[in-house]
């Protein structure tokens, strides 16, 4: 391709992004845009499948059949989200196998929030209310992301996430209004999940490595700090209705800003968890690798069987035609 044509393609791409048109798989796109999307979509897909683990931890102990059904459906949805997102990433020319390999070898990340343990039943509620709530705040703007397949996958994901968030809230409400032991369980879970949830929006804007370029490409629509503020503002009245407190003595309404002020986040904790030193990093990745390795013979069998079927079809004699 001559540089003149490249320039023309670039101009067309820039114009399409500027006009809020969707970029589709067959459109020309800058390599860096493609690489950014692959990184982000893969990380998102990996987060869905690793994120199954902390909640699946409670499926076999769910305290009522109704809760068990809801939790199973939720964990199943997460597997489904993983499927859509890997498929959406495949439109950019990478395979699910390659992406899983990168996850298993630590070359691609998943959301650090899943490196925290689910210690009690109330953690299932706190994950729904806070973690899924933060995820929705992050993801709703992605429904307008410039890359078509990602934006469309996110429309469906967000609908299901909003159900997940409501079930978490409702679970915590039942505990909060339940026995003193149940209330204490709910408060303890919120105390443990609040700060890690705020870190889900990523580092502050002035320290975010990828933000500026992603905003220019309209992959990202709002800054990390903007979304974090929006989330805090949503959570404060919800915590009041739940009858639970948020573990931040500096949290208060700021009339002048029209937002809640909140305490300083301990970013060194996030850095440590990202580096692999969170409470469950090894456990989560270990289980994922083990499931993959122990399932290898099943995938090989399916591939071998499909190959036999193809061979059989090709070698069957054709029926004589008149």
């Amino acid at each position, binding site marked *: 391709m001559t540089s003149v044509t490249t320039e023309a393609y670039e101009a067309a791409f820039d114009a399409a992004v500027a006009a809020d048109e969707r970029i589709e798989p067959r459109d020309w796109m800058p390599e860096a845009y493609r690489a950014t999307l692959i990184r982000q979509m893969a990380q998102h897909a990996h987060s869905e*499948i690793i994120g*199954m*683990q902390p909640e*699946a931890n409670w*499926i*076999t*102990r*769910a*305290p*009522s*059949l*109704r*809760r*068990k*059904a809801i939790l*199973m*459906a939720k*964990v*199943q949805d997460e*597997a*489904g989200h*993983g*499927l859509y997102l*890997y498929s959406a990433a495949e439109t950019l020319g990478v395979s*699910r196998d390659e992406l899983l390999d990168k996850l298993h070898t630590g070359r691609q990340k998943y959301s650090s929030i899943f490196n925290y343990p689910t210690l009690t*039943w109330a953690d299932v509620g706190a994950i729904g209310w806070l973690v899924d709530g933060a995820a929705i705040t992050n993801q709703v703007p992605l429904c307008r992301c410039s890359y078509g397949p990602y934006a469309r996958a996110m429309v469906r994901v967000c609908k299901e996430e909003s159900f997940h968030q409501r079930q978490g809230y409702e*679970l915590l409400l*039942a*505990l909060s209004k*339940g*026995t003193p*032991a*149940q209330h204490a369980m709910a408060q303890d879970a919120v105390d443990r999940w609040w700060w890690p949830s705020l870190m889900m929006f990523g580092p502050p804007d002035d320290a975010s490595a990828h933000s500026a370029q992603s905003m220019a490409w309209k992959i990202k629509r709002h800054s990390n700090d903007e979304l974090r503020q929006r989330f805090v503002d949503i959570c404060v009245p919800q915590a009041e209705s739940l009858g639970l407190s948020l573990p931040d003595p500096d949290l208060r309404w700021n009339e002048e800003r029209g937002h809640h002020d909140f305490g300083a986040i301990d970013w060194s904790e996030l850095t440590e968890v990202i580096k692999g030193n969170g409470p469950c990093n090894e456990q989560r990745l270990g*289980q994922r690798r*083990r*499931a*993959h390795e*122990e*399932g*290898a*013979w*099943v*995938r*090989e*069998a*399916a591939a*071998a*069987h499909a190959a*036999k079927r193809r061979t059989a079809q090709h070698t069957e004699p054709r029926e004589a035609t008149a």
Partner: protein
Amino acid sequence: MDTAAALALGDDALVLSHRLGEWAGHAPVLEEEVALANIALDLLGQARVLLSLVGDEDELAYLREERAFRNLQLVEQPGGDFAHTIARQLYFSGYQYLLYERLAADGGPLSGLAAKAVKEVAYHRDHAEQWTTRLGDGTQESHRRMQRACDALWRYTGEMFRPVEGLGLDAEDWVLLDAAWTARVTEVLTGATLTVPEGPRADAWSAGGGREGLHTEPFGRMLAEMQHLHRSHPGASW
């Protein structure tokens, strides 16, 4: 509603649903995470309807002792490898399909539930049969594992056709169900290049006490895990 019948079928669905739920996060491929959870959810739905016919679903699930459960020993068997799970599904879904198809047709007290459930179970059976074929006629290793799983669970299959009181089926009906089940399983296993197991299905060495509340050792641990949280907070609502 006949309590024994609702408990027998309800406990089968409840216990197998629980066993399938143990796969969450451990399945060999993402599509199977979705499929196994889907089957588990269908079964849990059936269990809730059946148990609610004769009592409070949570009291029945969480507060009965092991000896009061009426499920087949087949469904309480631990998951094992994926082949064991598929063999368990093949045997059970084949039985459940034939039984529900029969109950749906006879206009009895369970016919409404059975008519709805048989549509779900048709998918469960299809899923199990397809995987049996893939694993049986896949690689040498998958063939060996699938054969081993089919053999290991065979002794639990005779119990499925011991008459359950209150379903309105007579002795001959159960013989016919058994024959139809055996024919179908034989066809699937043979088509998958597997050998139909030859061990006993119904006598002194084979399983058969589940309907009377006699279970196998792994079942007690399964219930301990399932009931622990509920029992730790007596009287609480969730």
